[in-house]
């Protein structure tokens, strides 16, 4: 008798389980997760993308762009006292958001460490990664990233004191017997060691230093004769930390390494790649043609050339075919600005001069170049 009751109860539980199971899986949040959004069909695999699900569609349906930045990189992405992001990389996130969504502020900035940045792209946490990330062969091929157009050409340089005999013409040979400091375990360290070997000089590596702040501090203390990192980092520190009475010199004129920085996204998603790439190209073409955020309204009414007309969404525009709004690049330029505006606004104050650098336009002898919009 009792056993039969038990069986009935068991049957009821099982039936109940099946009914509950059939309710489907619309919310799969974890019990302990602090804040979990409803699961999106994040396109992390090649198969999904080939089925036609592009990140572009995801971003448009979501209405915000998840953009990976550093959040702690001087002039590239700085977290402001009110929590917002400011800087060159942050502005390129805004360019993409303005182009895709029509609103430069429809962004969810995800601040990432160097260790998590690629995982964040692979798992779909971020749609695009604009976090001073160098374009390298291994990252492009093995890690499953695709790289967009380079927005900033950086390269490793050295910084020493004028009082120690350094000048703008100094070279790697002048480092013989000196103590050189850099972040431990980075390619920076490998580059300088290789360069010293090639030049046949002996240098002492200071440190090890876990953080760049500590490197600069050691340079200020005089523990290090010379420090080395990417040129943008050196210039930024010189601009804000050089004590009175000292003159810090950055050399050699030609960096000892190539560090092209630009947007990065998951591989094999051409639709999304096109959207990001052409948003960047649009800022460069605008710069080449004198189109700025200030005169964008005037130029859309009366385009100076057919190319600018097409770029701003006039007759013959190509944006709609890409899955973007016709006025995508008009919004990007209008709301954020062209390449020169973004550069000057963010990198100017820390002393990174564009003229004469690799980041000048191609007509001025630099490397910033965009394919034609037609």
């Amino acid at each position: 008798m009792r056993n039969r009751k038990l069986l009935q109860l068991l049957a009821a539980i099982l039936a109940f389980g099946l009914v509950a199971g059939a309710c489907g899986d619309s919310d799969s949040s974890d019990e302990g997760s602090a804040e979990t959004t409803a699961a999106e069909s994040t396109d992390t695999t090649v198969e999904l993308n080939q089925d036609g699900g592009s990140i572009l569609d995801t971003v448009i349906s979501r209405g915000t762009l998840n953009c990976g930045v550093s959040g702690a990189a001087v002039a590239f992405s700085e977290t402001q006292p009110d929590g917002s992001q400011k800087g060159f990389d942050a502005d390129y996130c805004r360019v993409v958001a303005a182009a895709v969504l029509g609103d430069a502020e429809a962004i969810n900035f995800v601040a990432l460490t160097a260790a998590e940045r690629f995982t964040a792209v692979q798992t779909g946490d971020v749609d695009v990664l604009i976090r001073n990330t160098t374009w390298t062969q291994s990252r492009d091929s093995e890690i499953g990233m695709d790289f967009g157009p380079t927005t900033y050409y950086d390269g490793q340089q050295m910084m020493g004191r004028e009082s120690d005999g350094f000048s703008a013409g100094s070279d790697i040979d002048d480092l013989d017997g000196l103590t050189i400091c850099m972040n431990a375990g980075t390619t920076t360290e490998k580059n300088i060691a290789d360069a010293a070997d090639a030049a046949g000089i002996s240098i002492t590596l200071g440190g090890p230093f876990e953080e760049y702040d500590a490197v600069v501090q050691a340079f200020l203390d005089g523990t290090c004769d010379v420090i080395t990192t990417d040129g943008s980092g050196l210039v930024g520190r010189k601009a804000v930390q050089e004590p009175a009475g000292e003159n810090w010199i950055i050399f050699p004129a030609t960096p000892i390494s190539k560090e092209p920085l630009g947007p990065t996204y998951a591989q094999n998603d051409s639709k999304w790649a096109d959207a990001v790439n052409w948003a960047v190209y649009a800022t460069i073409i605008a710069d080449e043609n004198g189109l700025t955020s200030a005169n964008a309204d005037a130029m859309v009414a009366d385009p100076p050339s057919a190319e600018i007309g097409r770029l701003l969404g006039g007759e013959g525009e190509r944006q709609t075919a890409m899955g973007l709004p016709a006025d995508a690049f008009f919004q990007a330029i209008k709301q954020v600005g062209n390449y020169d505006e973004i550069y000057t606004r963010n990198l100017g104050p820390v002393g990174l001069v564009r003229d004469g650098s690799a980041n000048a336009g191609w007509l001025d002898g630099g490397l910033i170049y965009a394919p034609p919009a037609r």
Partner: protein
Amino acid sequence: MSGMITVEEAEEVVALPPEQPSLPPGEWIRKNLFSSIGNGVLTVLFALLLVFAFRGLVNFAFENPERDWDAVRANLRLYMTFAYPLDQYVRVWVSLGIVLSLSGLSAGLWSPDGYVSARRISTWFLGGGAVLLAAALAVQGQLQRDENGEFLIDEDLELIRGSWASGLGSRISWFALAAILIGAGAAIWFGLGDRRRNTFVRTVNLTYAGFGVIVGSLWVVRYGHYNGSPAEGTHYADPDSLVAMSTRLPWTVMWVLLGVSYFVGKAVRGWPLLKPLALTFWGLLPFFVFWVVLRDPDIDWAHVWTTDLPMYLAFAVIGGAVLFTLTNPSLGEIGRALAFVLLLVAVFTFVGGFFGWFSMLQKARLSFVFLAAFALVANNFAGEFAKRRTFVIGWLLTLGVMHYFVTLINSASTLNIRSDSFLGGFMFTIFAAVFGLMFSFPLGVLLALARTSSLPIFRLLATTFIEVVRGIPFITVLFFFSIMLPLFLPEGMEVAEHGAVIVGLVLFSSAYLAENVRGGLQSVRRGQYEAADATGLTTAQRTGLIVLPQALRVSIPPLVGQTISSYKETSLFAIVGIFDFLRIANNVVPNQSSPINFVGHKREGLLFVSLIYWIGSYAMSKYSQKLEKKLGVGSR
């Protein structure tokens, strides 16, 4: 005299500590500091060391060209709440208001009877004033600047400082504050005369007054000013304005709220059921504040009517019926077997969901777990109808609260968030510590019980878990949860990083807590178990009523030690890229070149963060000392 006055009536209570003979100062110094030549030398040496260390610290923190305390002042909001949207900031204040109201209410309900003697208050004032005075005297001369505001340097590139007196000149406010403190201390000391030893003030009143003084100072002292938006350019300390403009009014409201709720609590303390209700609210508070107030979920009512509510009703009715059956005293061992079957079903729903065999609402899975838990303890509630009814009502309420919170968690937030999380800074540290403690404590107790269980399978699982977790550094656990875990999860399942690291913290600290509790369990004598068995208690009753209370009492010191270290371990979140308190000081602020240039200003932030961590840890440590004294650990 003291027998005539009840504790509630009097602010000043004459207690009866034995009057200790106090030595005259000269005698005291001779006896304690210079009792022999060797001791005298040691005293002098260490006093000198102390003086130089103190002087070094003061001059490291202030009057140093590398220090710019605006780096902390201008970023106070970032430190406290990171990127919480400004237009919704009232939610932060509402949360704080709820917490403080409940604190005041609880203080009124329980009316803790702690007292501080006037003598001790006086020595606090005198000591604080003396330290401040010493700090003001220890500063170096002011750095000299030229007309452009640049620091002057001599031919050796050393900075030129003015005379010592020039340093003192800029510290007028320090001297003033020191004078006020010393004056107040002396007034209490000499004003009360011999009565200072047996004049007492309630700790509650003293705390409230101290809080009031700090809040009041916001109206006059320039701590740091944050107001407006970057677009308006009004971020920063306006040197001529009153500081903390944006926070002084809310804080004053908070202070009043605390006081009012205290009196309300005092007025209603005789009412029945209020204390357990308050405790329940404390338990639900972190969840409520987090998901309802701070996150502001946008509830999809159509989904609630079509899915959530029917599911709740189904579980409530069928689960209630199952539990009512299980509490039937004549069911016997079959009830227990059934409960284990339910547990298996609950585990299976998770395993199946993880491998994607079938899809199922998370809420259904959790409901099965809760049902299984209730079923497992059901036979403790077997008995007459009223007892069984109470148990089923308990099930309905628990299930309701759980479904309510899961619905909230699954609803999108309406906040206009511009970063990956609305939580960061100190607010996140607090939530991580609270959630970590809330979940790791029960888990730790369960693990300890399992490890001392007589069932080998429990022993094996618990021992394996504890030894594996204790053998791994915390930072490795964090890396696994923040970076590796997303790669292992099945398609479509995602865990927010903030949640994942808290899970890591819970697992890690529960393993250590389990060992602390196990130590306590071992101190419970055999006879206690036997006596419980002889009385006819079930295993669960024996554990809950006899063994655990004694074991936990003994484990208080190590448990608090573990709690303090969990609180501090939240700072390791900074390494896996969460914008907690430490990361803001260490990475974010030192990389701000605009609107004000704080590049390289790391030490101010680190000092500030250390101070806040120290205050939290010290408060916990003090509280545990009190708890130990109250429970008589060490004296019994």
